[in-house]
């Protein structure tokens, strides 16, 4: 497909009996930020590892910058910057030594490597600590160095695997701002996360992944439209929910009612206005509501709609 920096087709990976990734397809256009949004264990890291050529695939193909990628191929990797979920640096080397080392592995000539190392140290805010061993850095500084290594050679595609896990709010915001800036500068980004708000903030398109499959894909607007722009209303009740299902379904603003043990899930247009009448209806049916939770349409709601569970389950 013309204009795509990355194309992944039919990716599949099993570990014994566990199917970790099952037929994943997606593509990323030049300069696009694509998010893989899913809970822990959904298959995000396995997918990114296969895309990066770090993990052998049981099936599927990956093409980056027009070149096929696998564990044994190396040429396509020059176009990619990889930021693993766990900090992958030598703690007994300084930030400058770590960057210089990876610069050599990316085949950067010494004339440009030193200059680029200095630039990246400025970008990640470690210029004044460049000569200190990285084991002496705070967690946030290590994270920034971890990202800096991925940026060093000026890749066309940056892959970040949950880069904000375990990061304090200030560092997290700095990381998100960096990704936004790189995106504005035209770098394509593959960003995996289980934080809905990060995907909404950063990504042009999002693939919602669960149990190794991409359940839906599109822009935020396209995905939210899948739940019809409706609010999801969760009513915690006493054990008896069935008597209220019929009356609630006949309510003009309610599109769908699902009963579960001790709760009712409703898809409602304009929940804020309709809520008092919905509660009256439930009470009239003899169902006592103990608490109410309204989720406005967002990717969390989409995930809930698609999988029946919350992102952080």
């Amino acid at each position, binding site marked *: 497909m013309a204009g795509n920096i990355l194309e992944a087709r039919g990716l599949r990976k099993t570990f014994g009996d566990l199917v970790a990734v099952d037929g994943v397809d997606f593509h990323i256009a030049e300069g696009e930020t694509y998010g893989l949004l899913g809970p822990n264990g959904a298959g995000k890291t396995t997918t990114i590892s296969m895309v990066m050529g*770090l993990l052998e695939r049981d099936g599927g193909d990956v093409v980056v910058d027009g070149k096929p990628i696998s*564990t044994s191929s190396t040429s396509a990797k020059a176009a*990619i910057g*990889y930021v693993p979920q766990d900090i*992958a640096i*030598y703690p*007994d080397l300084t930030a400058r030594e770590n960057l210089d080392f990876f610069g*050599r*592995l990316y085949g950067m000539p010494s004339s440009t490597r030193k200059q680029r190392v200095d630039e990246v140290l400025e970008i990640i805010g470690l210029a004044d600590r460049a000569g200190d061993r990285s084991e002496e850095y705070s967690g946030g500084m290590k994270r920034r160095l971890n990202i800096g290594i991925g940026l060093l050679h000026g890749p066309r595609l940056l892959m970040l695997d949950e880069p904000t896990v375990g990061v304090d709010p200030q560092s997290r915001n700095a990381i998100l701002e960096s990704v936004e800036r790189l995106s504005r500068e035209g770098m394509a980004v593959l960003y995996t996360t289980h934080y809905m708000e990060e995907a909404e903030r950063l990504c042009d398109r999002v693939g919602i992944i669960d149990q190794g499959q991409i359940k839906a894909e599109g822009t935020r607007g396209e995905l939210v439209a899948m739940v019809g722009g409706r609010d999801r209303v969760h009513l915690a009740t006493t054990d008896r929910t069935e008597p209220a299902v019929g009356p609630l379904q006949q309510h003009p603003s309610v599109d769908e009612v699902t009963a579960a043990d001790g709760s009712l899930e409703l898809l409602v247009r304009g929940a804020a206005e309709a809520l008092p009448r919905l509660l009256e209806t439930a009470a009239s049916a003899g169902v006592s509501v103990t608490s109410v939770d309204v989720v406005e349409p967002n990717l969390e709601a989409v995930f809930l709609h698609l999988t029946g569970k919350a992102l952080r389950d």
Partner: protein
Amino acid sequence: MTKVLAIGVVNTKRFLREKANLFFVFVFPILIVLMIGAFFGGGLSSTVGVYAPGDGELSKALVQGIDDLEEVKVREYGSEAALIDGVQRGGVQGGLVVPADYDERLAAGETVEVGYVARPDQTGILLGETVNGVVQRQANLVRAARFAAARAGVPYEDALPVAMVVAPGTERVTVTTTEAGAEDSLTAEFEGLGAFDLGAHQELILFMFLTSLAGSAALIQTRQLGVARRMLSTPTGTGTILAGETLGRFNVALVQGLYIVGGTVLLFRVDWGDPLGALAVVVAFSLVGAAAGILMGAVFSNDSQAGGLGVLIGLGLAALGGCMVPIEIFPAGMQAVARATPHAWAVDAFSEMVRRDGGLVDILPNLGVLLAFAAVLMLLGTWRLRRVLTR
């Protein structure tokens, strides 16, 4: 090649930044060579403590006789108790007690006992034999003077000085023992070796291999830190990563090997045989050690596990390969088993050069076997590391 160098240099740099590594690579091996040379090679002087309160000529001559021995020093003590204390504390390796009336009692024709005290170790016992030799020589003089006094009617006091003057010029009887098949005997095999030679050859091989296995921890850390996988995310293949990691360990083993060879030549005048041959053995064995370290680093998943087993494997192979006890002492069956270790081939290469005056050409078979060991271990390491990183 640039990437291999980059990985190798970073590995070496990280290894040498660890102060404990510096001790074990550079200080410890020399200390062990020194200790083994001192204990088993007889290469260091021993000190005999002496308590000899008498001022007779014979008493003084006995002490002087011991002091005149090569590699034996004398330290005088003011009391027998102080001497015994000195022996117990290890200040001296043996102690001689000469009675205050030593000369007078000998002149009176009495039998006089001198006391010797030592700790029950090999050095003390061997030193006792040496001291006994000096005492016996003086006893022979006394017997000669008494004989002259008895037969020629010369006073003992006059005969003794004459015996002391005449004795050094007396022709000695030399007894030479020749074993059947002496050319093949152990005696012939080790004849002419310096005090530190054998120990140095053995310790070189033992330590180079142990250090290389210890280096496997660095590869395990690189895997645990995720750096190895991150290297694979760059345009760098598994083979290049392996070659770089191997180069790091090879550098350390080679530097350590050359350091031990150079250090022992300068400090202890150890004979390593043909310099080119010695260099070739050190290089070939550095490759073996590096490859073994890589294989261990790829097989084990935590560095403490590798550290414990590495020492066990390193010492086990060293013992089996003749790095602790000379392989020539092994029974025939064990000698055959020892050939399954690279250590035996490396030690044998030095034996060939030092004990049998061989050169580089004579040890080519040994070098070939060592390189084959390195190649097989590298292939296994590459296969294993690729597997653990990409599956």
